């Protein structure tokens, strides 16, 4: 296993994925949606809204950013990694290169993660900055809020990405399945009693926010959870890695036959 060779291949696949996800028409849609939180905070500041503070910022960003923007961006990008290349018949060009299928999945996943975070993180950080500046506070006053959102964005992107990648390797039409899981299941699951919410990503994201952010300004103060932030983060990381490995394994066994004819 020569390290320089595989590092070079990793870099090439990651760069190829990044370039595809960030420079084609798909990027316009995802970037626009990722900017919505920033536009919202700017319009609030411009409208001189009295009650606009970090509390309202969180009340807005949790349902909008975590449950709509994050899911939409991760879904549209994760399904493009393998399934779209299969549909576009461009996969044979990669598969006839001296690079193993699992490695291809791993490198593409890294490219996805970088692309998604590049799209998601800057707007949310600036939005936070605008909120603090509007309140006349220093950028560092509520670092726990910023930290909480950065952690959930990174872990959310990783886990949702791994989940949608795994689905896209299993199912011929992953976007439809992803929509149902992302928009329907993840938003309904919290209102179900008992341990059912544990089978959703959003539960662990909210747990992290609940523990990380100071109780005084925490809209999720009373969020029903019996796990600590650390454990939640651990769960998300292990689930992400497990799903990527599963996706790689399924991809390894997959056969690519050309349409009959």
């Amino acid at each position, binding site marked *: 296993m020569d390290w320089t060779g595989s590092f070079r291949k990793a870099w090439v696949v990651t760069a190829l994925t990044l370039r595809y996800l960030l420079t084609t028409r798909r990027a316009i849609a995802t970037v626009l949606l990722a900017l919505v939180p920033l536009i919202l905070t700017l319009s609030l500041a411009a409208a001189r809204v009295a009650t606009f503070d970090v509390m*309202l910022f969180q009340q807005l960003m949790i349902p909008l950013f975590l449950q709509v923007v994050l899911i939409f961006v991760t879904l549209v990008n994760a399904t493009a990694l393998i399934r779209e290349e299969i549909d576009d018949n461009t996969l044979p060009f990669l598969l006839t290169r001296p690079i193993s299928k699992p490695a291809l999945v791993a490198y593409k996943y890294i490219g996805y993660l970088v692309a998604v975070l590049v799209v998601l993180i800057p707007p949310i950080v600036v939005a936070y900055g605008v909120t603090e500046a509007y309140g006349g506070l220093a950028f560092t006053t509520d670092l726990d809020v910023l930290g909480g959102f950065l952690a959930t964005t990174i872990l959310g992107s990783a886990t949702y990405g791994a989940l949608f990648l795994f689905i896209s390797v299993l199912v011929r039409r992953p976007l439809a399945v992803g929509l149902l899981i992302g928009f329907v299941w993840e938003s309904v699951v919290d209102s179900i009693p008992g341990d059912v919410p544990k089978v959703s990503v959003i539960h662990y994201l909210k747990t992290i926010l609940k523990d990380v952010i100071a109780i005084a300004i925490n809209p999720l103060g009373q969020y029903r959870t019996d796990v600590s932030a650390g454990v939640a983060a651990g769960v998300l990381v292990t689930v992400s890695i497990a799903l990527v490995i599963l996706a790689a394994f399924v991809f390894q066994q997959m056969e690519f036959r050309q349409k009959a004819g």
Partner: protein
Amino acid sequence: MSISLPTYSRLEIPLLGRRERVWAIIATGLRREFRRPAAIVVIAIGVAFTTITSIVLVLFASFLLPGQPLNLSFFALPASNGFVLFFVSLMAAIIGSGLIADDLHSMAFTLYLSRPITHLDYLLAKAVILAPLVSMITVLPLVITALVAAFLFPLVFSWGVALQAIGLSVAVGLLLALFNTSVALFLSSLTRRKGLAAAGMFGGNFGLFIPASILASAIGNPNLLYLSPWNDYLAVASAAFGAPGIGIDWPGALAILLGVTVLAALVTYLRMKSVEVITG
């Protein structure tokens, strides 16, 4: 034994006009949609769910909302049933997203264009396929609820009020149907992958509705509701039925809805005109 062409007589009958050609696309399109299991399931569940919830609202209204005058304004309730928003998005996503995207993906669009019809005919036909399906969610439940109300409570709701409610429901329902049809076709014409158009429909509807409603209540500035098409629809519906408004005046909301509908249709037309299926 294959009949060779020369003995197979030339067709001398005159061709029908563009109206019949467009109707052919509509009729065939509707028949194809009703044969797709996904479409049937969504329509059935959508209509059933929305109608039942509306009727339940009607039955228990007097307990649930004491002091709610039982006159025309009462019918604003079924019109603002949350399930209408959910199922309209689902319908537009599952049926609408593929209407043009599939033709671009299979390049059948070239076949349509090589026939004696114009881009406008093609788009009109696609719109007339989607609109009735969407209005089965936005109009039908309201009409059924009004009939049930008049039937079950003849004393409370006179037939006059019921008929008026039906008329208004049809108008308001069509407005919402046209809006979603136009936006769904616009998203469908943008890409070959109908999955993205469907995701856009969901992202758009919910992405605007959630923040607008939270924000407006949180900071007490209702003007933000204009940003959410669903809230615009609610403003128009409540005004039509004479119910108390939701904080934004309905002329503005109506203008936004109609404006976006027309704009989306125009951009879709220009986009289809510019689609160059270059095969080199």
